């Protein structure tokens, strides 16, 4: 990509954008640039790789369907003019929004670029050494550190001129423990929009607990199978909100006639105490932004209020079809990937209950801890959410540590069976979300403790 300042990019984009009249057709163009640093340290490798500002552009227009062209160089803009036909009176096929302007750079408290890479590497080596020496049963500490700086510049023929620079940091620590033939681990993950301040504290504080958790997993027992009362920790609650429930709310699935929630708008989908939201505008979260990749301003979307489904999640196209307001959920992995309706920061709002009381009410049940992975079933409303570990509850007491647990069944049944949500602070955990098996975007999901009267669990 030949170098241009953002003012020059705006100017070039304006020129091409204005050549397509809004009343005839919708047109937008996006510049995407990514710089990243990744450090991976394991027993057998130390990898430092830098992505030195790979960038590209993608333009699209709607002429009855989307035409989209992604190119590596801004010098190739003329190709777009050649490939995108000019049409008449198709502008109304995509709902028109008032153009707006923003030019924002998130300034981290501690700018990672001001910390020499050798210092970061040294810190990771120190963590590695510390974990290795903690206990001989730790056979392989895996430490992954990543910095990502994303710049997106967006112009459309509604007059929008947008630029955002978003720094993100993520740290993942996974001490692999082995005793005899048993191998297991726990992990610690932190990630957010911001700078080195996000990981600095972790470096100093949380290590012993992370390591001990991995060692404890060597003694963990298999979970009982069947229908039992369960409590989801914030991480697992978020996984259910996002993976099992949220994907069915993506309005492209509704438009495809492929969502189990299609006929549930303004109807009861969860117990009265449930409030579930998607909010791309929460400051400093891994899934946050000022605008999406369709130039829509990020704002909070209350999906479920008092158990009633209030809103779907929209792109420009689905908002047009359903005469709704998009909230900043049209997202791309990069310029080379398509826009889809995607979640951002998705969570259960905390409730009013006390976690100790919630546990004490269960005679035999399970707490599922650490949302590990999950898969959507937008048409069937089925659920697969797997926790990394859990705890058995016996006679109102948290007792044995359990290995990985898979939660399955009907998501609506689970949501209806929620009988308490703890008043603990909202916790959001970072991750990446795919649409099907591709197109990964940064997200968070979370909540507080959520108690379910009964759900199907089995070993994960």
């Amino acid at each position, binding site marked *: *990509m*030949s*170098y241009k300042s953002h003012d020059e990019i705006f100017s070039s984009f304006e020129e091409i954008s204005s050549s397509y009249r809004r009343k005839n057709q919708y047109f937008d163009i996006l510049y995407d640039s990514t710089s*990243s640093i*990744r450090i*991976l340290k*394991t*027993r*057998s490798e*130390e*990898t*430092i*790789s*830098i*992505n*030195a*500002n*790979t*960038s*590209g552009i993608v333009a699209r227009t709607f002429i009855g*369907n*989307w*035409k*989209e*062209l*992604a*190119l*590596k160089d801004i010098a190739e803009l003329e190709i777009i003019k050649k490939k995108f036909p000019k049409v008449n009176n198709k502008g109304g096929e995509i709902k028109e929004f008032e153009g707006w302007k923003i030019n924002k750079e998130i300034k981290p408290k501690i700018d990672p670029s001001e910390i020499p*890479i050798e210092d970061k*590497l040294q810190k990771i080596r120190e963590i590695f050494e510390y974990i290795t020496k903690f206990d001989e049963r730790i*056979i*392989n500490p895996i430490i992954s550190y990543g910095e990502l700086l994303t710049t997106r510049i967006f112009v459309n023929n509604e007059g929008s001129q947008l630029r955002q620079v978003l720094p993100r940091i993520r740290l993942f620590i996974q001490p*692999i423990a*082995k005793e005899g033939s*048993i*191998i*297991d681990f726990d992990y610690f993950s932190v990630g957010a929009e911001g700078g080195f301040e996000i990981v600095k504290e972790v470096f100093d504080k949380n290590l012993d607990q992370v390591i001990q958790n991995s060692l404890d997993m060597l003694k963990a027992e298999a979970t009982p*199978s069947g229908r039992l009362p369960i409590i989801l920790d914030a991480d697992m609650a978020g996984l259910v909100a996002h993976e099992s429930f949220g994907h069915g709310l993506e309005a492209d*699935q509704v*438009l*495809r*006639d*492929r969502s189990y929630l299609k006929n549930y708008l303004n109807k009861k989908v969860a117990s009265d105490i449930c409030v579930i939201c998607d909010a791309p505008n929460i400051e400093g979260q891994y899934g946050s932004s000022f605008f999406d990749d369709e130039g829509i301003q990020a704002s909070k979307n209350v999906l479920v209020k008092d158990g009633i489904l209030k809103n779907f999640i929209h792109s420009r196209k689905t908002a047009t079809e359903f005469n709704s307001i998009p909230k900043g959920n049209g997202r791309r992995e990069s310029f*080379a990937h*398509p826009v889809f309706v995607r979640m951002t920061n998705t969570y259960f709002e905390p409730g009013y209950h006390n976690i100790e009381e919630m546990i004490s009410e269960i005679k035999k049940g399970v707490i599922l801890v650490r949302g590990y992975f*999950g*898969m959507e*079933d937008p*048409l*069937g409303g*089925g659920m*697969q959410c*797997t926790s990394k570990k859990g705890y058995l509850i016996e006679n109102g007491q948290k007792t044995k540590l359990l290995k990985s647990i*898979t939660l*399955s069944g009907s998501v609506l049944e689970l949501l209806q069976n929620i009988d308490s949500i703890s008043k603990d602070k909202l916790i959001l955990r970072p991750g990446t979300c795919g649409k*099907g098996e591709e197109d990964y975007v940064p997200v968070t999901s979370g909540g507080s403790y959520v108690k379910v009267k009964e759900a*199907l669990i*089995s*070993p*994960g």
Partner: protein
Amino acid sequence: MSKEKIELIENSLISKKIQEYEIYFMDTEIYETEFIKSNIASEREVNKFEYVIRTLSQKGKETGIGIVKGNSLEPKDIDKNIETCVFLSKNNSSSKYYFPKNKSLPQIKTADQDILNDPVGFKKDISEEIKKEIDGHKEVSPTFGRFRLHAQHKYLRNSNGLDLNASKTFFYLEIALKAQENGKLSESWEIEYIKEKEDLKIKERVDKWTKIAQNMLKAKIPKPNQHAIVVFPPNVLKNAINPVVGFHSSGRAYHEKITNLKIDDKVASDAFTLTDNGTLEGALMCNSWDGEGNPHQISDVIKNGIFKNRLYDQKFAIMGNTDSTGNGMRIDDGSVINSISNLEISSGDIAKEDMISDIKEGYLIEKCSWLNPDRFSGSFGTEIRNGYFIKNGHLEYPIKGGNISGNVLEMINNCHYITKEREFSVNSLFPYISFKNLTISS
């Protein structure tokens, strides 16, 4: 054109007197049609390139490796990327490493020249065929689909005289078909990476997926069984075997002391033979050379239940004082990981039909929600999306829901039957295998 771009980078490396370097260059074209219902919702073209520079800094028994990815060919950016790369190599401390030298490579055709000549025309033809097929099945409703054509051109040059190039074409196909009856809904949602145009078989696939969607309307929750006999078809088996057995077979798993697999130990049932085959035509990872430029080859991993060979990339081969088996895979950040290429499980001695006939009570699992086993321990637990309950040698009724759980490393010791028939699935050529002692809960 790409040769000129590589030379631009190489000339800069040479002018800076960099002794050990590698340039990996990838030019990619993507052509995609997205369907909503059976209508074309979007047509997308992507044209991008990127390069990765790796430089080495030798430090006695260790090597520092610098890795920088970029896509700017501005001389000042190339210079800066090289300087950064050299700086990283000076600070990095890896085990001993050097770039591969020229070796004899298998001759494999990995790109379809007709498609390279007219990718837009080919995409249009296949998109029309998809539309015709999904429109033709009135018993189901298409909800969503994607067809994508990838054309890749890769170049690899290093300071040890390696100068390779290869083109590759392959496809992505995703179709969701919905069946409904009396208020009941079911879906067949299938995602496939397909290497050869002959294997696209749109009609055959849509017919099969239509039948799945229809059958699932009658699906019941499977009955629980702590010691179930379960048949895994190739597409499900791949998701179990590749991440676990593939990982435990790697030089990396051995050097990180994670695997318990020892050479010449019995690790699987007698009938189980697994091969890594980077030259397997029709499989997605079929190439003449791996991500570092070492030749792809055929390596016995497990033969008749005995663990025979580990799979090495250049780094772990040097560490193990052996040769690379062509198992270095280039990943997104430009680094190389030790990974499988394509896996093959040898055919068994029973026809699929006869295997089913021989099962008194069992389960055929055609699709899981996400069979994502823990690659270290091999344990897994996943929701059943599509399948059948087998009773007295027949597919008694379709099943959906409930969970299947087990451990892949134990499963391969519990092979019950292995079929003669094999099918491609992404980077695997596997038979149907029935396993004993898996757990079904509901």
